[in-house]
C-alpha cells in the first residue's frame, strides 16, 4: 500500500509541477502585453542570450558542419554521389542540427545562467524587494528574458546553419576535392522554403522552452545554495530533454 501511495504522491506532485509551470508561462505572457514595454531590459537580455552566445554557436556549428561533410563524403562516395554533399550538409543543418544543437548550446550557456541569476535574486530576497516596490517581478525579470530568447535563438540558429554549411564546404570542397559548383548547386536545388520555415519554427519554440524552463526553475528555487545548484542542473536537463522531445513531435508534424 505504501508503494502505491508513494507512486501516487509522486504522480500528483509531477502534475502539480506541470500545472505550476503552465501557469507561470501564462502569467508571464499576460505581463508581456501590459505596459511598460521594457525595451532596455529586452535589449540587455538579447545581448546576453544572443550576442554573447555567438562564439560558442559559431565554434559548434563549424565543427558540426565539418564532421558532417567528412561523414557524408565517405558515405556518398560509395554510391558515386559526392556531388550531393552540399545538399546533405545543408538539409541536415537547416532541418535538424541547426535548431537542436544551437538551442542546446544556448541552454547550456545562457539558460543555466538565467536560472542561477533568478535563483540568487530569489534567495537574497531581491525578487521580494521588487514586489514590495509594487513592481511585478514576472514583468521585470521574466518577460524580457522570454522575448530576448524568442528573438535571439532563431538568429543564432540561422548563424549556426550558415557557419555549418561553410564548415562543410571547407572540408568537402577544399580538403576532399568535391567540386565547389556542385556543392552549392546541390544546396540550391535541394533546400526548399519549407525546410527553412520548419527550422525557424523549431528555433522559436526552442527559444520559448529554454527561457520558460530556466526562468521557472530559478524563480521557484529552494532557499539554499544546494537548492540553487539543483535548480540549475534541473533546468538544463529538463530544457534539453524538452527540446529533443518537442523536436521529434514538431518534425513529425512538419514532414
Amino acid at each position: 500500500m505504501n508503494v502505491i501511495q508513494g507512486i501516487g504522491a509522486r504522480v500528483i506532485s509531477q502534475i502539480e509541477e506541470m500545472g505550476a509551470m503552465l501557469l507561470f508561462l501564462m502569467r508571464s505572457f499576460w505581463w508581456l502585453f501590459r505596459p511598460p514595454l521594457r525595451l532596455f531590459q529586452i535589449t540587455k537580455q538579447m545581448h546576453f542570450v544572443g550576442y554573447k552566445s555567438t562564439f560558442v554557436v559559431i565554434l559548434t556549428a563549424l565543427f558540426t558542419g565539418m564532421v558532417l561533410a567528412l561523414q557524408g563524403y565517405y558515405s556518398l562516395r560509395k554510391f558515386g554521389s559526392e556531388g550531393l554533399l552540399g545538399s546533405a550538409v545543408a538539409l541536415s543543418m537547416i532541418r535538424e542540427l541547426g535548431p537542436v544543437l544551437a538551442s542546446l548550446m544556448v541552454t547550456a550557456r545562457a539558460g543555466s545562467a538565467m536560472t542561477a541569476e533568478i535563483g540568487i535574486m530569489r534567495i537574497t530576497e531581491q525578487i521580494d524587494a521588487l514586489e514590495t516596490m509594487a513592481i511585478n517581478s514576472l514583468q521585470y525579470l521574466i518577460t524580457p528574458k522570454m522575448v530576448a530568447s524568442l528573438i535571439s535563438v532563431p538568429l543564432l540558429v540561422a548563424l549556426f546553419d550558415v557557419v555549418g554549411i561553410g564548415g562543410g564546404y571547407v572540408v568537402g570542397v577544399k580538403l576532399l576535392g568535391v567540386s565547389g559548383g556542385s556543392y552549392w548547386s546541390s544546396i540550391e536545388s535541394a533546400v526548399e522554403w519549407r525546410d527553412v520555415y520548419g527550422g525557424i519554427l523549431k528555433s522559436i519554440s526552442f527559444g520559448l522552452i529554454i527561457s520558460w524552463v530556466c526562468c521557472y526553475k530559478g524563480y521557484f528555487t529552494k532557499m539554499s545554495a544546494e537548492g540553487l545548484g539543483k535548480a540549475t542542473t534541473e533546468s538544463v536537463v529538463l530544457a534539453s530533454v524538452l527540446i529533443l522531445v518537442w523536436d521529434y513531435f514538431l518534425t513529425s508534424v512538419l514532414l
Partner: protein
Amino acid sequence: MGLFFNLGSPVERAIIDMGSSIIIQLKGVEKTLGGQPVLRGVDLGIPKGDITTIIGPSGEGKSVLLKHMIGLMRPDRGQVLVDGVDLAKIHDRELNEMRKKFAMLFQSAALFDSMNVFENVAFPLREKRLVSEPDIQRYVPEMLERVGLGKMGHKFPSELSGGMKKRAGLARALVMGPEIILFDEPTTGLDPLMAHAIHDLILAMHKTFGFTGIMVSHEIPKIFPISDWVAMLKNGKILAMERSNDFQRLSDPLVQEFISVPGSIAAS
C-alpha cells in the same frame, strides 16, 4: 481618527483610547509551510504612525508574519486588513496599488547587486516615473546623505559592509515616502555599535518622515527605547502586545523568560 473595522481585543481598544488608529489588522491568520504550522491564528493590530516591534524566539514565524502584512504571502485562513482592505481577496493589480503605501527593509537589505547604491535608491523613483531625472539626481544624494552614505553612491553592494547595506536599504525604503515601513531584523549580523547606529537612524527617520514602522527584531533590550509598542509571537500566536514601557513589566512567565535572557533564547 476614524476606525476602519471592528476592534475587539483589550490591546486594540487601548490603542484607540490613546488616540491612535489601526492601519493594519490581522484576524485569525493561519499559515502552514512545508506541512509545518507556522502561524496558528494571529490576531494583531498595528497602530498608525508608531513603531511596533514584534519579538519572539527564532523560527516562530516573525518574518512570515511581516510578509503577510505586505502581501508577499497569503494566509491559509484569516484576514490581513490594510486600511480595511483584505489583502487575500484583492487581485494582483490592486495589491500592487496597495503596496505603494509600503516599503520594506529586508534582513539581507536585498539590494540589487547589478546596480550601484545610487541606482538602487533611484530604482523605485525611475520605475514609477513620478519624479524627473534631474530631481532624482538631486534627491537621491540628499537621501544618501541622510542615512550617512553621502559619498558611497558609486559603490556596488558587494563593496559595502553589512551596516552600509542596511543604510542603503533604508534609503531605498524611504525614497518613495511610504506610509508604512517593515523592518525585517534590521540589525542582524551587525556589531553592537553599528546595530545601535541603525536603531538611532530608524528612530531619527521615523521622527522626520512619520511613517508607521513594524519591526521584527531580537535586539532585547535595545528595541524598547525605539519602539512605541512591542508584541511577542509565541507558538504561532501573539502572546502579548503592550506599550514598550509596560511590556517590560508584564508578569507573563514566557515574556519574562524571553526578555530577561535574550542571549540564550533569541540567539537560539
